[in-house]
């Protein structure tokens, strides 16, 4: 035991010394790796950084046939319009609530599920469950939307079950509060399998000797989970949480768009659906860009903020 624990340490100390000592030699050894990184870097540059120049549109009165070079600059006009628009406050508030709930439960559910699944001894059962919960992730919301509208309808299977149990029907997609509930639950149902896999990967990386030691010390399964499994999953949980916080202003366009209707505008309309109706349907591309820009900035602030918090409280650095 002792030797196994001690061994990696000297190595870890040696390596940085080497790197500092001969950087050029290091590069000559690793250049193929850097070269392999190049295509990804180029693709990122072309598809993520170059299009950013289009953000200029947010400050223009963009007309498609005039192009970016020909359109008139209007400064912060679109941002002013965005904040003065009567529905903006409501739409931003809806987005925050819906995506906040999605983020919180989108962490808790797969976290718990991964721990439970990890305790399963039968490998076959584990694999099957893992695949099954992952599958909905691949179904498009256009299809899921139609299925849910059917299932949750007045004569759908859910309401039939409810009335069979003597309960009154619920207007899942037509009542604002129930709509939020439906959106959050169906989103988690669709996506928790994906994060479960991430957490399971983290679990398989836990050093078995920790469990062996705990068992020697007489810890029960529950105690082991509490003191080994959960602490060792915290860092990856922080990563997942941090990354999803950057999406705080994305309520999930395709989902809401396929489920919402005029009855739930006041509780279910989010920034993206609102932008779709204003910017795309009415040809206000500049306004759409301005909102997108605003969202990106908030997203960036949230990531930086949560990164700091994660570092402070969990001692974890992502970058």
């Amino acid at each position: 035991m002792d030797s196994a624990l001690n061994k990696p340490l000297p190595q870890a100390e040696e390596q940085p010394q080497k790197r500092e000592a001969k950087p050029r030699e290091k590069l000559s050894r690793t250049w193929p790796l850097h070269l392999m990184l190049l295509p990804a870097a180029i693709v990122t540059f072309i598809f993520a950084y170059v299009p950013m120049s289009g953000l200029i549109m947010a400050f223009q009165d963009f007309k498609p046939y005039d192009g970016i070079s020909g359109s008139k600059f209007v400064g912060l006009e679109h941002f002013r319009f965005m904040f003065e628009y009567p529905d903006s406050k409501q739409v931003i508030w809806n987005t925050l609530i819906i995506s906040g709930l999605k983020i919180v439960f989108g962490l808790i559910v797969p976290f718990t599920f991964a721990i439970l699944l990890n305790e399963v001894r039968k490998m076959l059962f584990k694999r099957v469950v893992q695949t099954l919960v992952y599958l909905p992730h691949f179904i498009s919301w256009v299809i899921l939307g139609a299925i849910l509208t059917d299932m949750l309808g007045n004569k759908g299977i859910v309401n039939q079950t409810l009335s069979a149990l003597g309960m009154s029907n619920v207007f899942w997609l037509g009542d604002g509060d129930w709509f939020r509930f439906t959106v959050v639950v169906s989103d988690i149902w669709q996506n928790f399998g994906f994060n479960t896999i991430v957490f399971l990967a983290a679990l398989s990386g836990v050093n078995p000797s920790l469990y062996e030691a705990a068992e020697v010390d007489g810890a029960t399964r529950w105690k082991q989970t509490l003191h080994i499994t959960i602490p060792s999953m915290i860092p990856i949980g922080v990563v997942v949480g941090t990354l999803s916080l950057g999406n705080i202003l994305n309520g999930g366009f395709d989902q809401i768009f396929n489920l919402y209707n005029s009855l739930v505008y006041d509780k279910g309309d989010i920034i993206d659906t609102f932008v779709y109706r204003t910017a795309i349907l009415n040809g206000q591309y500049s306004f759409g860009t301005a909102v997108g820009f605003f969202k990106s900035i908030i997203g960036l602030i949230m990531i930086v903020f949560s990164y700091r918090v994660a570092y402070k409280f969990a001692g974890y650095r992502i970058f």
Partner: protein
Amino acid sequence: MKKWLSLLLILTFMLAIAACSGNNNGNNNAGTTGGNASNTPKETEAAAEENFKDGKYTTPITLSTVWGLNQSSVFKVGETIEDNVHTRLIKERLGIDIKYDWVITNTNDAYKTKLRLMLSSGEKMPDIVVFRGDLETVNMLIDSGQFMPVGDLVDKYANETYKAGLDLDPTIWLPISRGGEKMALPVLDYAYNGDHVMWIRQDWLDKLQLKAPTTIAEMETVMDAFTNQDPDGDGKKNTIGLATGFKNGFANWMTDIGFLFGAYGTIPGQWNLAADGTLEHGSINHAAKKALTKLNEWLNKGYISQDSALFDEVKGSELFTKGEAGIVFGPNWLPAWPFPDLKNNVPGATYKAYPVPAGPDGTIGSQGGNPPSNGYIFVNKDSKNPEAILHYYNWFFDNIANPQPGSEFEKGFAEGYDYATLPDGSITADAAKYPDLFPGLKDQTAPPLYYTLTYEGARIPTLYADTHIKLAGGAEPTTPYEKQEFNTRLKENTDAMKVVMDQVEIRKKNYYMGPLTETMQSKNELLNKLLNETYSKIVYGQQPVDTFDEMVENWKKSGGEQITKEVNDWYNSVK
């Protein structure tokens, strides 16, 4: 060794990227700029007329244009849009040599984008530009000042068929009128095809011994029976009266609910002609309040689905095709789609078309009756032969639009393209089954009408309706068009078209045919949301009916008044 492997991997990646980015440029037909329009001064009309004799230019002329290639255009091996059976025939018959300055595959509105680029860079336009799409682009083309008024051309050169099609509805000119001048030639399409009838489950009516309703009150009796008297006879209360879905608004292309508003004198979601001759938005007309009250009552009584606000047209129609609802409002062609589903789901189900019912004071109103145009042809004012496109269009009206038995194009446009003759003399269009008869084609025919400058050759707006009225009267089909309609349409479809034509005067068209106004662009979203939300909540009883008046005030305050003014300014400028 490993190093070389990774190097190879990298090189492959690089190549892949290079290949991907390179592809985009490959397809551009690097259009020659400008167009070949006149370097010489415009020839006199007399000379042009002299040149055109017996339906043909004695000295062939060139007609330049630009083209967006749609997916419906299939070509034989070796043929292109520039050189095919259509261009050759037109050159031979009419002496018109069609020249394409550029051709682009029309995906993602590429044609529109390229046209707009031409406009913004001030490029010279070809002799004619054909465009089917948004009114913003139509406006830009007109405002470019490169195209001529066509009123005189139509008077002088258009044949009677085209003129009759245009005269069917004078408002066809509204979107393209400028100060009394007609700035483009409308491409005609079949008329009345979107106008609604009331479809009822005839077997339910017969079973419950009811007669078809002619008023809203009678309709309520029928709906009540359909809801409560178990018309499908399964012993369960699982039927409703009317299939409707108003997720997308309250006037729909199928599963329409607009007829109920029409019965009280307005059509929501469009601009109606008010009694004082101005245009008003149908959704804020006070009549809508009565319709909403009624709709709320229907929902409470279970005549319409509790989920109606969640359903769009297609989803709503499923209520009917599943055998759950007994009435649905929609166009004459529903028997072709989606009604076959009803026959599959409920064997023995029968349905029939009836006229749209009247309101309490006898008012009947249903959306529709919009002018039968689908696209426009713009004629360059510097064109040497501005009349050429009319000779071209005339030829299609005369020869192709409705060929008579025994005429040259009776069977189709060209043998081996859109049809082939079997050894026994009958005609087939099954290219997959008879590949030998369609040389140079694979599995599908190549209808040359889709190559034409007017999109589908020529369509006589009234032909569809006239044919079905004739067939509904029991007449034998004689012309190829009549035979085709007779063989492919169900009897219910034919009868429905007669019902549509019997009620032609109840149609309420959308009088605003211009592009989005400035205030519409910034306020449409807000206003539509306000309307749809209030409407739905009133129907569902989540808000009292009286919030309607509040909504109207809000609508006016939040930009509706300004839009009404802009719309009327437009109307005054074109009428």
